[in-house]
């Protein structure tokens, strides 16, 4: 009789132990999947943000080429690029730079002339704000026309946007 009761007790204990093992195992598996899913979602959102920054850079009214008030798509005016770069990189014009943080966040935006190849290359860092710590950089390059108002010609350029994710 006593032995029977003891066996029954052990049986119950064994069931409970196995049950909790399965529970913990299942929970660990589930949370691992959740973590992986969250990470994928974060990566996806970062890609989306980077894409938005690139779109904003390409459609800035500050840089657009317009003729008789008609805007030309995918085109930067070279002198506007130069002027915006000067204003954004002027240490005495901090307010101006802070206003653009709302637009670009943590990013590094460069405009480079690719064609024609000239001795003095047209390369301007438009905006640069790199955080001290970042988890990843998403780089995008996009071809863009560079309009020279003085020479009245269009050159082939690239806008490189590096977006930093914290």
């Amino acid at each position, binding site marked *: 009789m006593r032995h029977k009761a003891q066996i029954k007790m052990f049986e119950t204990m064994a069931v409970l132990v196995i049950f909790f093992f399965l529970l913990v195992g299942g929970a660990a598996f589930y949370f691992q999947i959740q973590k992986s899913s969250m990470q994928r979602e974060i*990566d996806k959102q970062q890609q989306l943000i980077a*894409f938005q920054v690139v779109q904003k850079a390409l459609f800035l009214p500050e840089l657009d080429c317009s003729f008789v008030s008609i805007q030309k798509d995918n085109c930067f005016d070279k002198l506007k690029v130069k002027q915006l770069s000067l204003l954004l990189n002027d240490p005495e014009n901090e307010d101006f730079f802070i206003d653009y943080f709302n637009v670009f966040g943590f990013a590094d935006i460069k405009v480079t002339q690719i064609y*024609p190849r000239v001795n003095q290359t047209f390369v301007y860092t438009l905006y640069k704000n790199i955080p001290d710590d970042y988890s990843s950089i998403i780089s995008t390059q996009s*071809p863009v*026309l560079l309009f020279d108002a003085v020479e009245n010609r*269009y*050159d*082939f350029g690239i806008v490189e946007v590096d977006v930093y994710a914290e």
Partner: protein
Amino acid sequence: MQNKRSQMEIMGLVIIVILVAIGMLFAIQFLLKKPVGRETAAVKESTLAANFLNTMLSTTTDCFDRNVRELLQDCALTGGATNCFGMSSCDYAADQIDMMLEDTLGKWNKDYYFTISGAPDVEKIKFGEECKYCEREAKIHPVPVRPGFEISLMLEIYG
């Protein structure tokens, strides 16, 4: 007693099989999922191809300050009658296009295939290697030469 015991053992086995099957389902789901950012990368490449063609066509060259579009139109219409620094407009345009492709897509280690169709003289302008079975984003940009006659530029970027 014996019957009940064996029934319970079978039940146990069934539960284990079900758990293993569910586990395998999850594992397969993850294995087959596309890597993150592939959708965004596809959109970026498609935009890149379109932007490249648009930008390239409007770029001014040193040949009488004509842009690439005008040189290609001249090539399609006259077979390259315009003389650009001793070259025909077709050869000169091809040269400039090659330069732009190499300094951008080439430098970024992106494989591409560029072709023009619609006229025999422009069809000679081809750059890159076609990859029939690669994942690609392609853009076709029509360029009117004269009413009823147009050429098409195609750029495929493989990624």
